[in-house]
């Protein structure tokens, strides 16, 4: 093989090794409490014709639109996520930025009615901040709160400029093949601040 081919081999191996190392270091945290979520309610199985593995579980949050998974957050202030407050009527909106959100199960909605025959998600956003590590310090109980990375953007509508959750990072959690798909999945935040599914139970 010519020299460039060997360099390409090295790029592949180094890149994949870096990703695997980051992932494994994140998940090499001590066992303990995790955040139990109900599959089919707070987590939905992502399936399509091409990926029928049942290994992808997506967070389900109450949204203001059935088309997009964007969540408007009227109670959050721009300075909470390190953004300058833009003019309400015109001008450039601030760019979306990486932040963190704290998720919890809404105790009021535990017995919430079903929607279209399906149980509604009880996940709710209890806090948003620019620094996920600071959020983890403020909400230390991993059994009650889950801190997840997020992308927070701004949207202008008739009522002014509002913040919205554009994306959870990750929106979709990978269920390792080693774990069977059951009714409950325990999500734990790893040493690198990245959530992962650590266990499942009936």
């Amino acid at each position, binding site marked *: *093989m*010519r*020299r*460039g*081919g060997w*360099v*390409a*081999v090295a*790029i*592949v*191996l180094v*890149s*994949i090794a870096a*990703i*695997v190392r*980051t*992932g*494994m270091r*994140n*998940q090499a945290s001590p066992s303990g409490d995790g955040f139990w979520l109900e599959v089919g309610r707070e987590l939905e199985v992502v399936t399509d014709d*091409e*990926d*029928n*593995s*049942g*290994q*992808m579980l997506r967070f389900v949050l109450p949204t203001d639109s059935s088309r997009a998974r964007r969540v408007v957050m009227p109670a959050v202030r721009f300075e909470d996520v*390190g953004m300058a407050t833009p003019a309400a009527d015109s*001008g*450039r*909106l*601030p*760019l*979306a*930025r*990486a932040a963190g959100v704290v998720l919890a199960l809404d105790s009021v909605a535990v017995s919430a009615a079903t929607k279209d025959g399906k149980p509604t998600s009880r996940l709710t956003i209890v806090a948003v901040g620019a620094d996920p590590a600071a959020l983890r310090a403020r909400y230390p109980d991993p059994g009650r709160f889950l801190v997840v*990375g997020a*992308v927070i953007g701004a949207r202008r509508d008739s009522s002014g400029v509002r913040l919205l959750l554009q994306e959870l*990072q*990750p929106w*979709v*959690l*990978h269920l*390792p*093949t*080693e774990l069977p798909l059951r009714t409950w999945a325990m999500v734990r935040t790893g040493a690198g601040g*990245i*959530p*992962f599914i650590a266990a499942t139970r009936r």
Partner: protein
Amino acid sequence: MEAQRRADRIRAFREELVELEHELGSLLSPPDRTRVEAYHDGLLAELRQSHDIATSAAEQQLSLGMRIASLVGTVTLCAAVVLFFYRYWGRLLTPAQIGVLTAGPLIGLGLTEFAARRERTLYFAVLAAGVSFAAFALALTAIGGIYNLPSSPVAYLALGAFALVLAGSYGIGLLLAVAVVCLTIFLVGALTMLSGASWSEFPSVPELSLLAGLLWVLGAVVRPPARPGFAETIAEVGALFAALALLVLGLERDQSLLPLSRGVVEGFYVVVGIVAAVGGIALGLRRQWTLLQTGSTGFLVLLLFAKAFDWWWQWMPRYLFFLVLGLMAVVTMVALNRFRRRTRTAR
């Protein structure tokens, strides 16, 4: 590429000589004719041997067909590899998933080397290299997904470096274009992230794409790569980034980072767009980079028409609007024609 051009020139010379002799009578003495023909035949045989070039019009048409088939084959095989993996990965344990994903690009690299040794035209090598690239992109995405890692511009750095190395080693222009796209996304995404925003917001900062695109064009002109055709590819992809950014900046007034009023920003970027388009046309003509020249002309027309729609569609009667557009097209044609005449005089 250079070998094919030489062969084309020989074929054109022979055809023109036949025409000339038909009109003016015999021009070469029999010994001279024999020498020229023998020299050209030997040269063509040598080029065919070393570069597998097309030496007739029919062969050239077949070569074009092979190139198109190679491109279509690359795209469809890439899709097949990605979809096949997602179809069956649920049956593998995590270590096996990672093993399969790692093996994919490596097998692709082996096939690329094998194909490059077997055929000089590189049609199959392009296909194998494309599949290898797709397998590498799949590996980065899927392994990142296995560990729930957030997306990062660094993945584009790895992909860009991989494509660049393959393009340079095997002389594959398509992968060079892919490398320029990936490295631009990395650069612009990383700069966006440094500004505090999410890196995926980079399309909302078109000035960065404009800057990156112009830098690629400048690099291709000032320090062109030694391999024939590579400078042209780099300049064309860079110009595409710059053109898209200028279109957004010229039409979407709120997209600029410049601390100026909306009207000033709009006018500024329309002028920059026109100047850049004229520069692209001139550069394309000077270097004989046909796609750059054609693309710049298309961009100029598109920009002018889009601005005309933006400015006048609402208040002008429709007949007048289309009349103005028609006149603009005529003015563009006249300007290009003058430019062409001046170029011819300069030669």
